[in-house]
């Protein structure tokens, strides 16, 4: 009985200390996006694309959806790499998942058309 009490108190305390599962998981997002920001060469582009694909396909966050901005920036990087159709498709996926993005996605699509 005492043991049960002790265990339940301990579990409760740990529960209040541990951080919850994050809304989204991001893989190697930070370092690969830094390298791309810094170098924008073939290697850093390829690595960033792999990171985006990983975030999309192996998402383990508590919301179970792709984080804000990932489809959009992935699309943008594809556009920079002259993969126009693929890039546009990704931008539109962002709008479907996050309708609040429509305003600036439309703006980027317009910049591309120019």
């Amino acid at each position: 009985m005492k043991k049960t009490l002790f265990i339940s108190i301990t579990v409760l305390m740990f529960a209040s200390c541990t951080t919850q599962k994050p809304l989204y998981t991001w893989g190697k997002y930070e370092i690969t996006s830094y390298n791309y920001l810094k170098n924008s060469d073939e290697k850093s582009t390829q690595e960033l694309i792999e990171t985006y694909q990983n975030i999309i396909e192996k998402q383990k966050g508590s919301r179970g959806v792709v984080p804000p901005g990932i489809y959009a920036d992935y699309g943008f990087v594809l556009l920079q790499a002259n993969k126009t159709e693929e890039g546009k498709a990704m931008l539109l996926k962002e709008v479907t998942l996050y309708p609040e993005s429509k305003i600036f996605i439309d703006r980027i699509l317009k910049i591309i058309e120019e």
Partner: protein
Amino acid sequence: MKNILLIIVIAGAFFSSCTTTAPIAKSVAYKGIYDEKPLTILLMPPINRSTNVESKEYFHSTLNIPIANAGFYVIPTFLSMEILKKESAYDAELFLNSPLTKFGEVFGADLAVFTIIHKWDKSGLAAKVYVQVEYIIKSIKTNEIVYTRTGDVTYDASVSTGAGGAWGALADIAASAINTAATKYVDVARACNAYTFKDLPAGKYSPTYGTDGELPAGKKIFKANLNSKYR
């Protein structure tokens, strides 16, 4: 009897490690955010006033994760960078004290996050990085500051292998050497952002949205010792 005492002591130790000393509730400290219920956040390019030219990019690449994970929609950074450049608005310093309504029109943003890196100093021998960074979040609608915190952060970049004694220390030095500089410094910025935004009100995509107002806000001006293990 002994058992009960033990439980109390352990409980005390646990609770003291969890609580913060700041007594102000988030709903009071960050009232503007709770009133406005913002969704969309624009990250302004960090302002670098330190002597380290690289530090701007370290912060730029690491700001969106803690804010998105708090439940907000963060405008994608590469896209916003492109648009800001096209609109000749890439220098955030120019907008720190001026109306932000244009950013509402262009991006549909509710809040703008300014990051000012005041100091970024390295000490070679001890593998430590000292950062002073100020975060200012402004409402795009009212131009009011709705959140601000300034941190003096000491980041210990030596990677601990966990092994003790003289051999452990040698192993630590070797382990630090394989840590590439970029990875290390990106992690310094990551830790600063993660620590600071721990007390950010929950955004609309968070399960605690609207119910976290009673939790304590962090100190406006704080000191922290961080390392790569800080999450």
